[in-house]
């Protein structure tokens, strides 16, 4: 019905799936982190495209006079995404720091090799 008109949301969904697949199925820790970032941006794209209104302007209103709300896009998703983008950086910094710690202990970024080392240590 409106699959072709909703291409923006469709792309957001596909980005989310690509990121999620990278996060779950890849064995390299760095790739997992980048997958998490792509997943984040997919969600942000979906939120922002839900707030977009055709032929509307950026929500910066004139300093004087009446304001007609229908002339401007929805500012709520923009505000939510703005905070989300900055948090995603701190999340990736935290995960990268964990990654460095794991590399220092096991000297690999591969999850399988790490698992083998852990098994050996248990024995």
């Amino acid at each position, binding site marked *: 019905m409106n699959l072709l008109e909703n291409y923006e949301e469709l792309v957001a969904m596909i980005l989310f799936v690509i990121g999620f697949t990278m996060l779950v199925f890849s064995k390299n820790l760095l*790739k997992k982190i980048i997958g998490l970032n792509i997943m984040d941006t997919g969600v942000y794209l979906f939120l922002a495209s839900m707030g977009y209104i055709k032929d509307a302007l950026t929500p910066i209103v004139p300093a004087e006079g009446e304001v007609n709300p229908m002339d401007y896009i929805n500012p709520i998703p923009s505000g939510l995404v*703005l905070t989300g983008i900055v948090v995603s950086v701190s999340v990736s910094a935290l995960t990268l720091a964990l990654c460095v710690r794991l590399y220092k202990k096991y000297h690999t970024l591969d999850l399988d090799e790490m698992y083998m080392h852990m098994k050996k240590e248990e024995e």
Partner: protein
Amino acid sequence: MELLIPIFRMILLISLLVCAVATALSKKPMTMIIIFTAYSIIMSVVWVLLRSPDLAITEAAVGAGVTGVLFFLTLRKLHLIDKDKEEELRAANESKEEKNDEK
């Protein structure tokens, strides 16, 4: 003109998808991170088309700038960047410094 904007938007979205898939398929960590930086820059243009310029500024500074720098620093810390190249650069630099001192 009216028709051009949706076409531009579609091109951007398709290149976004291509970048995401390329990141997923790349084997070298270095390539992966460079493609991810490109992905962030395309994303910031998409934000402009969605009429949210504040998101575009943030994404350009944070997604393309700081996140990329953090990933590269991690690679450097794990010694995953090409070692021979580094040695070469260091040798070249030292010889240059010596020349400077001679002058």
